[in-house]
């Protein structure tokens, strides 16, 4: 029997979907069912479709996406924990014609990097801040995050988050939306095809606004963490819809005047 090749199976005329040219072939370090991989793919598609590879500088965080530079084929800087917006500020100011984005998790953006987040948004730096909120510290093994829901269990809130002791979860998108420096603040998801399409539209708007120098664009992606939440991928998505989305409602929080 003749060897069956890739092209024998996937006929170009039948191809409905493929990974972005800007996604590398490196094996993702994310757990099965995690939203990071989908968020990466959507971002890579937008960078490719908007022809941004040659002028993009991405800033990666400390957290699960610390190795993001292995997966998307653009220039990257790896920041210290929480400091990505400070790096992005300098990059954009020194090279205003580049497309600059940060990609950060909830511990990075809303705990240790709160000052950088607030002040970068307050200065209205012309960058995109992409915020993946899964309500937990994934990489270090499931500790309580600033966005962990009330009563939610984690390895450092094993009896559930007691808001009288540990404070309430921070709605970072709502906070930065109050600052005059932000021009576009929206909350999206990647757990459904519809959610992915909406995120893609939001990312394209952010590209447009950055080109128009309108201020900081802040896109929160409410996502899941099957490993940290100790659930299967399917369970985690269901739990996210039932618990995360009511607390972090999806949709635009702030849109620029047209």
């Amino acid at each position, binding site marked *: 029997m003749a060897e069956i090749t890739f092209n024998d199976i996937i006929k170009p005329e039948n191809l409905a979907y493929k990974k972005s040219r800007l996604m590398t072939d490196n094996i993702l370090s994310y757990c099965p069912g995690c939203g990071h991989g989908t968020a990466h793919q959507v971002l890579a598609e937008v960078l490719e479709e908007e022809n941004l*590879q*040659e*002028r*993009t*500088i991405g*800033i990666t965080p400390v957290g699960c996406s*610390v*190795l993001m*530079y292995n997966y998307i*084929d*653009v*220039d*990257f*800087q*790896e*920041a*210290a924990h929480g*400091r990505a917006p*400070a*790096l*992005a*500020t*300098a*990059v954009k*100011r*020194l*090279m205003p014609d*580049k497309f600059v984005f940060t990609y950060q998790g909830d511990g990075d953006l809303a705990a240790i990097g709160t*000052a*950088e987040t*607030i*002040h970068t948004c307050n200065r209205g730096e012309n960058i995109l801040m992409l915020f993946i909120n899964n309500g937990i510290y994934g990489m270090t093994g499931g500790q309580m995050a600033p966005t962990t829901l009330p009563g939610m269990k984690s390895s450092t809130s094993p009896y559930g988050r007691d808001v009288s002791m540990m404070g309430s979860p921070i709605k970072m998108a709502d906070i930065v939306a109050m600052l005059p420096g932000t021009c576009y603040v929206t909350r999206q998801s990647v757990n459904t095809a519809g959610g992915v399409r909406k995120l893609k539209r939001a990312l394209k708007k952010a590209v447009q606004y950055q080109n128009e120098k309108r201020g900081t664009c802040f896109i929160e992606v409410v996502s899941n963490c099957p490993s940290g939440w100790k659930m299967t991928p399917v369970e985690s998505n269901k739990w996210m819809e039932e618990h995360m989305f009511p607390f972090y409602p999806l949709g635009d929080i702030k849109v620029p005047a047209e």
Partner: protein
Amino acid sequence: MEKELRLMKGNEAVAEAAIRAGADGYFGYPITPQSEILEYLMEANPQATTGMVVLQAESEVAAINMVYGGASCGKKVMTSSSSPGISLKQEGITYIAGAELPCLIVNVVRGGPGLGTIQPAQSDYFQATKGGGHGDYHLLVLAPASVQEMADFVELGFDLAFKYRNPVMILSDGAIGQMMEKVWLKPQKKRSEEILPWATTGKPATRERNIITSLDLDPGRQEHFNLKLIAKYREMEEKEVRFEEFMTDDAEYIFVAYGTSARLCQKALQLARAEGIKAGLLRPITLFPFPKKRLNELAASVKGMLAVEMSAGQMVEDVMLSVCGKTRVSHYGRMGGMIPTPEEVLENLKSFIKG
């Protein structure tokens, strides 16, 4: 702009020299006794002339991470602060060293520990020369003793930072930062438009993506990288040691002092010579790399060395390591923002001679 003679504070000289050296960016945060650097740059507004970016950050932590971001683009970027602020910057500094990036950091030292005082001190020597943040690394450290050197070391610092892709620190103190002296300023240099091959400036089709990181989860590769850094520091020790000597030819006793202390020792040396004591002075200009070899040579011909520092005794440890027991070494210092007088230094030399 031509070469120009001005009367300036050390801090102002740093700021003006940065503009003239063609710096691309300065990111700072106010702290006494160095706030004039940020103030001067804001008033000079070089963005309108050379295009240099000047930004007041929300914290020292943010400022050094802005430097990290700018340096990652291959830009000539700098920050300045004073001791407590430099402690905050250590996180960013170790990342910058770990990612092998060029930048300039100015520390106008004040007394510590903690909030300490706003008066001059030299108590950040260990922090500056031994790494300062976590991990095995060194900064290349320049110690100015005049306003002229505050200005000159900005361009020298940038040149060395790019030569070795390593952060350079100007270790000054509150006295050098605040005092006014005449200073020759160099003509304006154009900002570089060169795109460096390793810098993150956007990936063209002609090269692989550039990644600036200090992370390697593979211990073998990380150790290999550590060895590469050590080789770089050894090369600095071979090629970049700078120092100045005064009357060491026939000296029996040598002061070893840098910055403000070196100026005091120059006067103390004259007082000593007037009393018939054959004193000399070695002033390290680079604190890392330290003038180990020269001190070791001198150790063979002198009766002793007195390290004079405005600290509890930090550089003296490097003097001891340099002479390897060949001669007596002692330390004299004041702390907490107190500056010794030349007479005080001479008295201490005399008691050192008595043994």
